[in-house]
């Protein structure tokens, strides 16, 4: 039996008098591509930050490659796990290029110097999210979409076997959304475990697996092809959309159609 890259056991956390995460157990294998969806306040971002070890749970634990997150030295853990926050948190006047370079901090540490491999990884990540053109501009002067591409490149530059991304498609236009999702799927094919909180349900339905959350719990877990999962998805959003099966460009997929 192979060990899951990341495994959560009975995670629970109360925030502001609410049970933000309520007894969540879930595992993510190498080569998997999972989207976490659910209405506002369902606990998606909180769960993701618990999975990343960025806050301690009230109960339960998280195992990274079979070893409790808390037992990992911070720098080693940082090499195994790339995290992308929601965009609003990043602010400052350093250049886009230097922001992406921070992704290599777990490799060379606070006091080490970046080597050729680091610079190559940075260049690769910036090329992938198409932010080379504004590499020298300040983060604070970029548009929302440009900033998001820089922050994504920062997370990708870690080149970690596990990616935890909170709303990675925010502010991205359609071509960049497509490029990102293709990139994430490609990383999963190469063996990484990719987990992303997504708001756009049609984008989320392109993932291999969906976790549907409501009120701090996972209420459905499975591939988009699972009819039960789709029904649960429609239900937690109060029937605000239907999920249709369409064939476009020779590819069959599920899309969310707003019920207006």
């Amino acid at each position, binding site marked *: 039996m192979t060990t899951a890259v990341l495994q959560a056991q009975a995670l629970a956390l109360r925030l502001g008098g609410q049970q933000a995460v309520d007894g969540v157990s879930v595992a993510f294998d190498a080569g998997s591509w999972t989207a976490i969806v659910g209405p506002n306040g369902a606990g998606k971002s909180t769960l993701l*930050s618990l999975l*990343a070890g*960025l806050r301690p749970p009230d109960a339960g634990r998280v195992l990274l490659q079979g070893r409790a997150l808390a037992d990992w030295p*911070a*720098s*080693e*853990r*940082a*090499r195994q*796990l*790339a*995290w*992308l*926050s929601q965009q609003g*948190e*990043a*602010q*400052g*006047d*350093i*250049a886009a290029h*230097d*922001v992406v370079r*921070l*992704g290599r*901090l*777990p490799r060379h*540490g*606070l*006091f080490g110097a970046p080597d050729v491999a680091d610079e190559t990884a940075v260049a690769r990540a910036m090329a992938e999210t198409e932010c080379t053109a504004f590499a*020298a*501009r*300040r*983060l604070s002067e970029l548009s929302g979409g440009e900033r998001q591409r820089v*922050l994504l490149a*920062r997370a990708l530059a870690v080149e970690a076997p596990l990616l935890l991304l909170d709303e990675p498609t925010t502010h991205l236009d359609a071509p960049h959304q497509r490029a990102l999702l293709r990139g994430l799927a490609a990383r999963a094919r190469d063996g990484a475990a990719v987990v992303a909180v997504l708001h756009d349900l049609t984008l989320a339905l392109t993932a291999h697996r969906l976790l549907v959350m409501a009120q701090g719990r996972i209420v459905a877990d499975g591939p988009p092809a699972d009819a039960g999962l789709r029904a649960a998805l429609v239900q937690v959003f109060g029937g605000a959309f239907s999920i249709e099966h369409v064939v476009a460009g020779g590819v069959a997929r599920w899309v969310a159609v707003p019920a207006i």
Partner: protein
Amino acid sequence: MAAALAVLGLAAGSEGWSFAWSGEWHLVAAIRAPRTVGALLTGALLGLAGAIAQGLFRNPLADPYLLGSAAGAGLGVVLVLAAGGLFGTLIGVANADLLLRLGLVGAAFGGALIGVALTLILARGTAQPMVLLLSGVVVGILLSALSELVMLVAPEALRGKQIFLLGSTAFFGWTSVAVLAVALVVTLPLALRFARALDALVLGEASAASLGLELPRVRLLLVVLMALATGTAVAQAGLVAFVGLVAPHIVRRLVVVTHGPLLALSALAGAVLLLASDVAARSVVVPQELPVGVLTAVLGGVYLMVLLRRRGRW
């Protein structure tokens, strides 16, 4: 620019400009030179502390006097002055003897560090920056209130405190210069070593932590460096306003850099700013001189107003 200002600093005497140094060498060596070097070093410490504060709290309006150091220094000075008053020596800072001067410097330095230590205790460490900032405000208010109380009991301390805290480079001797230099030699290289942590904080607390930084420890170290730099500067020159706030702004406007160069350049900008202000303070109304803190406050305030109008944002 710093060099040109230094020449002006050596030339600015109480009776106007004078470049005929050979005739008044003792003046230059004993008064103008330490004052000039001291102003450079004080400005550098404040610029450095300001850049650390703004990076640490991710706030371009943060200044080195946050976290209770200013109020702590003020209380220390008032206590020494009041104690001096109690022992029957009415003291003006300007004519204070060496012993008292040392006492004031020590009290200001100790007070600044105690202020920051109280803030750290109240905030229970550095885990939550917002709690840390609020604790700094609370400690600042409490220590200032204590100062007021002491001054009610010993009103003669008021004038001395005013002069001391207005910010002045008039008291620098070579001893002050040595102390300031040691502080800069200790704090600047250490701060530069941790500059990448400030870069990572640009991403936000969670992302910085995800990069493997042990934030509470790194933050504590940076707070200590900031307190040392600020405490030393305040103890030697009083509360020189705005230099620590404005110096990093000027650097960020001029160049796009990471925190390593930003810290070093902010120290340089602070040095230039304070020396320029000092030279101006000594030259505007010869033979009188303005307290340099008043001048930096005016210049800094005007600069920030212009910045605000031009950019419409910080």
